[in-house]
């Protein structure tokens, strides 16, 4: 989707219609296209990302966190870390943001149909998974068993608390919540105090007809994939989404590449099999 005069870098204007706080440092923004024509024609697939701009502060890359099945708006969840995200966090309902996209590839939804799915998320890494989870739950009958494992540093750091409650209550999916085993950890009875690999060790998920989709901090992805391999999982059944510093999202600015793979064009969704073949530079 390009803006009218062919200027690839000119975003569409979207209006923030809803903002809510997920954690003290993470907010989710719901946005609607100002131009109804653009909004009506806007389509994307779970896993794709966009370039969001706060005018005056710059542009940054975030995944689209809602499902394509929930039309009419886009959502993104953002952790406040630097100039642009700080500017975004200051925004309120009615404020204008720039958006261009969607860019990149997406989760292979078609291939997942009829299969068991296991989502493993860590921290804000749940955001890209949420798009797919919503999508799967909205078309639940196409899939076999769905399980979600989600961990964060502490309970307060859980994102999408509303949805977690829904998932808990729903019979559509299994849910396992965990917090890091750090000293003085306080959490509810239904939350485990553990890193994810021991949970996997215990669950021993059977790779047969099942796909794992994982996203989180790099170290978590590394440990989870290592554990799954140990449990006999083939690498092509593990799917993850990567994040690199990006500027253009169009494959031109030359900074998101890992080897000759451009995360913005060939990714951000990769199977672990692909990732294993990358040079160690991500």
């Amino acid at each position, binding site marked *: 989707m*390009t803006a009218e*005069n*062919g*200027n*690839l*870098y*000119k*975003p569409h*204007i979207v*209006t923030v219609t809803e903002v809510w706080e997920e954690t003290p440092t993470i907010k989710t923004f719901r946005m609607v296209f100002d131009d109804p024509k653009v909004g009506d024609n806007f389509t994307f697939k779970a896993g794709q990302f966009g370039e969001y*701009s706060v*005018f*005056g*502060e*710059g*542009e940054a890359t975030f995944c689209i966190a809602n499902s394509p099945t929930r039309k009419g708006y886009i959502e993104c969840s953002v952790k406040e*870390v*630097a100039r642009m995200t700080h500017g975004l966090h200051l925004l309120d309902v*009615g*404020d*204008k943001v*720039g958006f261009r996209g969607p860019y990149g590839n997406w989760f292979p939804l078609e291939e997942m149909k009829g299969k068991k799915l296991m989502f493993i998320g860590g921290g804000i890494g749940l955001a890209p998974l949420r798009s797919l989870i919503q999508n799967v739950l909205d078309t639940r009958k196409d899939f076999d068993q769905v399980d979600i494992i989600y961990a964060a540093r502490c309970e307060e750091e859980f994102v999408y608390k509303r949805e977690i409650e829904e998932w808990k209550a729903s019979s559509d999916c299994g849910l396992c919540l965990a917090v890091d085993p750090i000293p003085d950890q306080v959490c509810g009875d239904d939350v485990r105090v553990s890193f994810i690999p021991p949970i996997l060790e215990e669950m021993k998920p059977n790779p047969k007809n099942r796909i794992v989709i994982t996203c989180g901090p*790099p170290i978590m992805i590394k440990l989870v994939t290592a554990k799954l391999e140990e449990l006999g999982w083939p690498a092509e059944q593990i799917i993850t989404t990567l994040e*690199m*510093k990006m*500027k*253009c999202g*169009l*494959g*031109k*600015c*030359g*900074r998101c*590449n*890992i*080897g*000759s793979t*451009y995360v913005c*064009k060939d990714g951000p969704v990769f199977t672990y099999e692909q990732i294993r073949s990358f*040079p*160690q*530079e*991500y």
Partner: protein
Amino acid sequence: MKMQKLSEDDIRAGLDKLSRETVVYAPMEQEGRLDFRKMEKGGEVELGARKTIMSAKKLFLPQAEELFSFKAGKHSVEMIDPPKDEEPLVLFACRPCEMRALEIMDKVFNWDYADFQWNERRARATIIVFACLEPLTETCFCNSLGIDSSRSDGADAIIYTTAEGFFARAHSEKGKKALKVFVGKDEEAPEFTTRDFPEKFNTDLQEKMMENFESPTWKEIAPACIGCGICTFVCPTCHCFDIQDEGGRRVRLWDYCTGADFTLMLAHQPRPTQYRRYRQKVMHKYSYYPTRFGEILCTGCGRCIDQCPQNIDFREVLKKCNRLAPAETGGEE
């Protein structure tokens, strides 16, 4: 073959006329620095065999370019396109390697998404190339990249320098039109071939580098690199950029992969050491780009060698890459 024969005076007179009709960029000296500058009245264009400091890339991908400007209010934002520059532009006396660089970069700027700004400038420009019948300086190595510097088929016109004068030939309609301002008769021109390139080495490193990505030799390839941006900024093919908001404008700026902040994210730095950044620079040019686009992202113009403050010879780097061997001990730090 018949070509338009011109004397130095013909060229100067023609350029003078041309610069009154349209915007002309040509190598001109200012305080001892030769660079492509806009021709103003009375400007002395360098017609001799000298290399500019910066390459002609800067005319097509300016160092800082406004993508659009905006007026942001509380609940409104208005985006304004930058003033359109529609004047045709003549780029005079760039070299075949720079022309080649533009053709190579056309690919990335049209990879799935067509970069409007780049294409628009490319379409607007008439490029008149000065052929190099011998290397401009001792740092030229375009022959090793398979570039025949006696021709430049992508250019609109080409001019050959000989002891008897200049011979000009148009390759395109635009070129024909531009050459019309130069008086001079068609004469039989001699056969032009390049000569005197001292050496030729293998530059087909695509596979070799990829296979030896982890080789500890990378650490010894250019330990003297200080991570400045000179080699990328003077390079005719380096096109990596940054996008920033500055004073109500969104600007696209040159960026350099050898710098520490290129891929620096708040909590994560995929290339934490200088040798990794240098490896990215070399491999982007000689491995990744060929893998994606089938062309080496380097034209052997030698500017990086001329300008490197630490005297790193890129040819030496490439020769070392030719000798890359797999890690014996496994080289990661």
